[in-house]
């Protein structure tokens, strides 16, 4: 038995080593693409896939990187932290050292520990939780701004442009929503605007009439809502029915065409902080057309952040003439990169130095336009 086990161990080690050398010698460089391909948020995984595949195609057309052609390999973590760990281990075992992903913050966080340990370079195009880069990982970067930046951006806009008399801050008691709502409330207080109300609603609730009556009684003229579109949609719809006409504002979580479907006319003019629409950038127009030609949607918020993630990697590979992840990470940290989302620079933690968010006004047809 013991003998058998030893043989098995030796054999598998040999296979592993063979596998790794094989990958290193090949003329294709595999880029792991980790995110949800199935499950409730698979639509966001699709956006990431569209962006990465478009970038890889463009780079290969231009001759590849350092003589190597890129190949995207898709791994499905279903936005589940447990599966994300399994996927990370599989990527390591498959001998892939360059990963775009993961998508959900709750998946990125556990997976990043494994990549850090194994020296796998990872760039997430969608995870916005501030805690991810707090661990001091060297191999981790992102091409999207932080949640916490959305809060201060919203607060600045409220103090500078909206200037309401009485503001209420409402949230859905979840990590994302309450965290943002707290940040907004605190920064408004610093700016001299004290929130009249600060309270939570229950996710999944359908009836907000009691809350709306209270907002009406308090003569609130501006509501910041930290949470997602299903609850805010109903709050907007019921506010309109009850003749409560304050200005509403929310984070990226409310930016979804479903908001307009749920709230109808009441969704017109709602403010939201959201990632900039990179598909409008002049530099991306040819790419947008190419993606459309394939019958895919280039407008998703993560399409061009994912595109940029590939660019950041390949830029560094070209500049350092290497695929060694330590060198790449050092290069990315030290140098500015020109990407699909503009010129970007990183701080020590691997976060973007400038926010990629902008304040938008949402419209009842599901579209949005920059707010001024």
């Amino acid at each position: 038995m013991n003998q058998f086990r030893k043989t098995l161990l030796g054999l598998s080690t040999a296979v592993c080593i063979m596998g790794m050398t094989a990958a290193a010698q090949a003329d294709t460089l595999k880029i792991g693409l980790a995110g949800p391909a199935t499950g409730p948020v698979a639509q966001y995984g699709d956006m990431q896939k569209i962006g990465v595949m478009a970038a890889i195609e463009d780079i290969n057309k231009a001759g590849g990187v350092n003589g190597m052609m890129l190949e995207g390999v898709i791994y499905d973590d279903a936005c589940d932290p447990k599966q994300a760990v399994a996927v990370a281990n599989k990527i390591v075992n498959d001998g892939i050292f360059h990963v775009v992903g993961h998508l959900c913050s709750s998946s990125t966080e556990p997976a990043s520990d494994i990549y850090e340990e194994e020296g796998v370079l990872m760039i997430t195009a969608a995870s916005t939780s501030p805690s991810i880069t707090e661990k001091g990982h060297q191999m981790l970067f992102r091409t999207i701004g932080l949640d916490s930046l959305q809060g201060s951006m919203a607060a600045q806009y409220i103090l500078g442009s909206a200037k309401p008399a009485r503001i209420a801050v409402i949230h859905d008691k979840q990590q994302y929503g309450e965290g943002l709502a707290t940040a907004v409330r605190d920064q408004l207080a610093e700016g001299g605007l004290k929130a009249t109300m600060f309270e939570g609603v229950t996710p999944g609730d359908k009836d907000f009439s009691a809350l709306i009556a209270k907002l009406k009684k308090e003569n609130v003229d501006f509501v910041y809502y930290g949470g997602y579109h299903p609850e805010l949609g109903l709050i907007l719809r019921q506010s309109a029915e009850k003749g409560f006409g304050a200005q509403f504002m929310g984070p990226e979580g409310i930016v979804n065409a479903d908001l307009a479907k749920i709230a109808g006319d009441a969704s017109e003019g709602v403010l939201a902080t959201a990632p900039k629409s990179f598909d409008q950038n002049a530099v991306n127009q040819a790419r947008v057309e190419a993606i459309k030609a394939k019958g895919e949607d280039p407008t998703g918020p993560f399409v061009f952040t994912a595109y940029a993630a590939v660019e950041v990697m390949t830029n560094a590979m070209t500049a350092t003439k290497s695929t060694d992840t330590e060198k790449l990470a050092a290069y990315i940290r030290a140098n500015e990169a020109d990407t699909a989302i503009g010129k970007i620079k990183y701080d020590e933690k691997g976060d973007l130095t400038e926010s990629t968010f902008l304040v938008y006004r949402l419209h009842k047809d599901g579209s949005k336009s920059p707010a001024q």
Partner: protein
Amino acid sequence: MSEFSLYLLQQLINGLTIGSTYALIAIGYTMVYGIIGMINFAHGEIYMIGSYITFIVIAGLMSMGIVSLPIILIIALVVAMFMASTYGWAVERVAYRPLRGTNRLIPLISAIGMSIFLQNAVGISQGFRDVALPPMVSGGWAFGNPADFEVTVSYMQVIIFAVTFVTMTLLTLFISKSRMGRACRACAEDLGMTNLLGINTNKVIALTFIIGAALAAIAGLLLGLYYGVVNPFVGFIAGLKAFTAAVLGGIGSIPGAVLGGLILGVTEAMTAAFFPSEYKDVVAFGLLITILLFRPSGLLGKPEIEKV
């Protein structure tokens, strides 16, 4: 009236409406329990299916060019009640009848399984995301001073309130006066003996489920129109609240279900009115525990008689 009393009135109206929605679903729970002593946990899902059918029928009729609101609503109601009843009957036939007479826990587990099955079946066929319907019945009355505080009552709120009371009355009459209702009460008392006396108990129980499902479909239509949104999980939360209302009022008692629903709804609204609204469930369920401590069979329930 002062601003405060207007505000109080508005919250009371809100609470009564929420309470009526709980009551409407709770009636179905309590009726099935009253007759076969079993909690039909899939009842919330039948309500959800009722909402979906309403949405599909309304969307279909509107795309066919029919715009008359009463016609749309009547057709939607008839179709939803019929389809939901079919589901109710099928659920009883598949998940409960084969298990009748076994340990009480077994049909309970089977009911929970049915509930999860229906949630996911609807989710897979219709999508897990919210489906929305534009407001159909809009408008209402407003009174009070707009500068101070304006109380609004929408037509939908009045309709929900009225339908709940009409349903409660009709159902109570059906159970206490009709021949079939008498058979139902006999089944509630002693299933085996009723059967021996020549009443087809299978038929009576199936009918109970059909009526319960039809009521859930009415609730699904009204609440679907009121909130304008449905997703595969609405049945779970609504079912939980309705079940609470039924227990609070005394499970098995139809007026009790309505009373329980109204108390629960008003408590929630009043808590949200004067405390941060995240405390509304704490207070509402605290109230439930307190009432059950002093009246274990609920407000209008009869003390449990051990059945053999």
